[in-house]
């Protein structure tokens, strides 16, 4: 093993030197802003979202988000296929203690509200579909940790995931009627809740999809049987 450790160290030293020279060439604190500059200037008038990162994620780089949805879906499906049919593996699951049960019951409504708030205000303040969707998934997973025998209803999660993903695609396709695929609709004033056209609706669909997907995945990991 010593030989392999030494070889790994040598390789990493070389890689570190290479990366350091790349970083020195890149420079710090002075990005060229070739794409970012025009986006920063034109985003308020073109898209109308106060959160410029949201406008980049959903409007200017919308195709990346679409592909990323596909990647998440593929990963969740593949994980489900690898794990096999889940059984209600109640035999090895002991119900959690008093602290976890009480905390899960108390935190559930707060997590729901926080997740919904972050999703709906994604175009105004930092946040959006991914962050809020993760919080929603955790909100539904906490009671499962406290009470493992309950299980997550697979039908509901797959239904929500499927319809939210389809809604996202439909809104993106509807942009074809306007400027092109995934073009945002105009509408609303900058800084209001109902602004930036289709962006809040897109993020709502995204958040629901991500939340349902992650909740279903975690529920499946919980209930898979041991052969």
């Amino acid at each position, binding site marked *: 093993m010593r030989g392999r450790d030494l070889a790994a160290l040598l390789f*990493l030293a070389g890689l570190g030197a290479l990366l350091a020279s790349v970083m020195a060439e890149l420079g*710090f604190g002075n990005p060229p802003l070739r794409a970012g500059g025009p986006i920063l200037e034109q985003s308020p008038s073109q898209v109308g979202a106060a959160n410029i*990162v949201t406008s980049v994620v959903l409007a200017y780089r919308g195709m990346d988000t679409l592909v990323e949805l596909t*990647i998440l879906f593929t*990963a969740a499906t593949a994980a489900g296929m690898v794990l096999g049919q889940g059984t209600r593996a109640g035999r090895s699951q002991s119900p959690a203690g008093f602290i976890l049960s009480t905390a899960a019951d108390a935190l559930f409504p707060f997590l729901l509200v926080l997740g919904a708030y972050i999703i709906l205000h994604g175009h105004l303040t930092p946040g959006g579909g991914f962050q809020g969707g993760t919080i929603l998934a955790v909100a539904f997973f906490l009671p499962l940790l406290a009470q493992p025998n309950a299980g997550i209803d697979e039908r509901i999660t797959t239904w929500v995931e499927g319809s939210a993903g389809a809604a996202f695609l439909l809104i993106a396709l509807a942009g074809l009627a306007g400027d092109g695929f995934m073009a945002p609709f105009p509408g609303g004033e900058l800084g209001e809740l109902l602004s930036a056209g289709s962006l809040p609706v897109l993020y709502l669909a995204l958040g629901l999809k991500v939340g349902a997907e*992650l909740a279903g995945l975690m529920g499946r*990991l919980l209930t898979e049987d041991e052969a």
Partner: protein
Amino acid sequence: MTSHSDLLGIMFYGAAVALLLIGLYTMLTRRHLIRVLLGLTLVEAGVNLALVAAGFRPEAAAPILGPGAAPAMVDPVPQALILTAIVIGVGILAFALSLVVRIHRTYGSVDLQVIGERLASDPDGTGSEIRRRAP
């Protein structure tokens, strides 16, 4: 001002490269499957930090518009890309963990060396010989 910016650059990029190298070393030299996955998360963290640091401008604000005139802002494009990358990282982690669970179910171990030995004695790759022989 330039030296201040250089020092910041060395700190951020140095930390990112250090994370990447520590994660790679973990993946190369450790035998426990879960530890290899932890190394992978470290590598992804290092790369994300390096890319977000590349878009930073000192004395600039976060790319959120507020009331009033817009100040100078940092580059929003790397932030959007890293947002996607973080979520993809957790998707990969979830799939890799399901593979680990399946491997443990088939070969009875999560030590890479033990799995390698048992694989060598497994003719069709499905672990049927292992299960037949082991109690």
